[in-house]
């Protein structure tokens, strides 16, 4: 393609190019240094993680063949030739999937209730005491740093196998995650209503209920919906440690090499998760729209 733009003569272009080179050179060194650091970190961690490329290349063909095998029935035919056979356990899986959704729901609601109660004590602008604020913040941090599955493992010992342990694990994690987000929401509110109510002589709980809470509700609900979406995903694997839901059947199918069952359950999970995703994002956009209208 011929360029329609007239280029400067070489004598004039040279100093400009040199200046560009000079200004880019130091940044280029900077980038190289960072890349070198990352490379060193990669090599060190590959050594620690026992990465062996020969092993990967020897076995990588098994990944596609494993995935393909997932979509074959026991008689070697592809799954879609006999959908009834593929989804032979549909009633049971749907029941377990329903249980998973209920677990996620209860976990999210209980966690959100806990977080709403805690967040006013953790927000810098309304917290009644500094020490209480620090304590509540640390508690939330503890709840969300320990992975849900670890809580589930401990709760399975205390409450026995079953969904109860899973729900409580999800709820505790949700308290931690939402407590932090809710506190940030409260920190961003307009303080004037709270001041007005306090100036009118009412107590702290009343000021929170009528001054702070109305400003935060739509954000709270929006974050809780987002969390529900995340919790659906994590309750789906609670069964891996015996804490209820569809995970129990999934891990059994994977461990015992019931290939077509694995793919059937995964397909059900993927469909459920994307339906929930779509629904919650629709509701959340409605909520945000509502908030902007006011």
């Amino acid at each position, binding site marked *: 393609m011929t360029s329609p733009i007239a280029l400067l003569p070489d004598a004039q272009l040279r100093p400009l190019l040199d200046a560009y080179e000079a200004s880019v050179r130091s940044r280029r060194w900077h980038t190289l240094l960072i890349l070198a650091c990352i490379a060193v970190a990669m090599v060190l961690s590959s050594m620690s993680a026992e990465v062996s490329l020969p092993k990967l290349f020897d076995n990588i063909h098994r990944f596609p063949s494993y995935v393909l095998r997932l979509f074959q029935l026991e008689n070697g035919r592809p799954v879609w030739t006999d959908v009834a056979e593929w989804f032979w356990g549909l009633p049971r899986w749907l029941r377990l999937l329903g249980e998973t959704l209920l677990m996620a*729901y209860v976990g999210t609601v209980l966690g959100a209730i806990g977080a709403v109660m805690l967040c006013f004590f953790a927000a810098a602008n309304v917290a009644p005491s500094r020490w209480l604020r620090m304590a509540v913040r640390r508690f939330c941090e503890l709840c969300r740093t320990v992975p849900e599955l670890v809580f589930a493992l*401990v709760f399975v010992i205390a409450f026995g196998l079953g969904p109860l342990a899973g729900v409580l694990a999800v709820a505790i994690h949700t308290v931690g995650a939402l407590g932090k987000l809710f506190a940030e929401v409260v920190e961003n509110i307009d303080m004037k209503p709270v001041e007005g109510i306090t100036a009118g002589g009412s107590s702290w709980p009343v000021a929170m209920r009528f001054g702070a809470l109305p400003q935060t509700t739509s954000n709270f609900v929006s974050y809780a919906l987002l969390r529900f979406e995340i919790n659906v995903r994590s309750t789906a694997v609670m069964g891996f440690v015996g804490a209820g839901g569809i995970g129990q059947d999934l891990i059994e199918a994977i461990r015992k090499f019931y290939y077509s069952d694995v793919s059937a359950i995964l397909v059900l999970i993927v469909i459920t998760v994307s339906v929930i995703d779509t629904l919650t994002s629709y509701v959340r956009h409605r909520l945000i729209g509502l908030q902007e209208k006011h």
Partner: protein
Amino acid sequence: MPAHFPVDLDAVRGRHPQHFQRFDRRRQTVIALAAAAFALLVFAMDQLDFFDGKLLKGMGRLVEIIGLMLPPDPKDWAHVRIFSSALLETIAISLLGTLMAAVLALPLAFLAARNITAQRVVRFLSRRSLDTIRSVDILVWALIWVNVVGLGPFAGALAIMTADIGTFGKLFSEAIEAADRKPVEGIVSTGGGQLLGVRFGIIPEVFPVLASQVLYFFESNTRSASIIGIVGAGGIGLYLAEAIRTLELQQTSFIIFMILVSVVPIDYVSGQLRFAVIGRRGVVA
């Protein structure tokens, strides 16, 4: 006291009737929704055995278990050494998985971004596959990779990589779509091709955002990496699950304590790096 300045309540009521209505339409819907949510909650709790006495009995046992967990005690130094090396392995898994995912997700993100990829079919397919990857949990990926490369930390790193490709692909493509079009137009108008436009027009703009997201995920992946050992994919999770299953409760609490302590400096360092990359703007969602 209200008596000091007389308010003609009836006049106010006449002027603003809507504020004196006890339940207006909006309020009614909200109350109905809350009641429905509460009914569903009670139904679900009943279905999940909340009300048949297991909860109370379990609470008692839970208190007992927490009592047995304290104080954290690894038993001896040999265990401390094993746990520390497993913890390092966990961090290595997380770092490796996150970086590999970032490298692999970048091209996919360009394919899924509306302002780069004009073909709707390509965009649709890459988005759907990213969504599918995202909706499968990291533990499932770990189990699948264990079948491919065998037990061990390598499977864990690959699992984190796979799960994060989905998330990064989505986040990166959103960042790319939010980028300003003008630098690209400028470059294309001076004769640079589409590729040069992406390289000099878009990458410099989105790179800080992407880097901060990668750092943020390194942090949260360290937490996920600490549990994938439960399914045999390396890291400290193996020892944690073993300690819980064999009821070595003091060791359990020691391992949890180690994980918590190791997350703190990672949090701090990646937070500082993030601020250095994007300025004091806080977390980029």
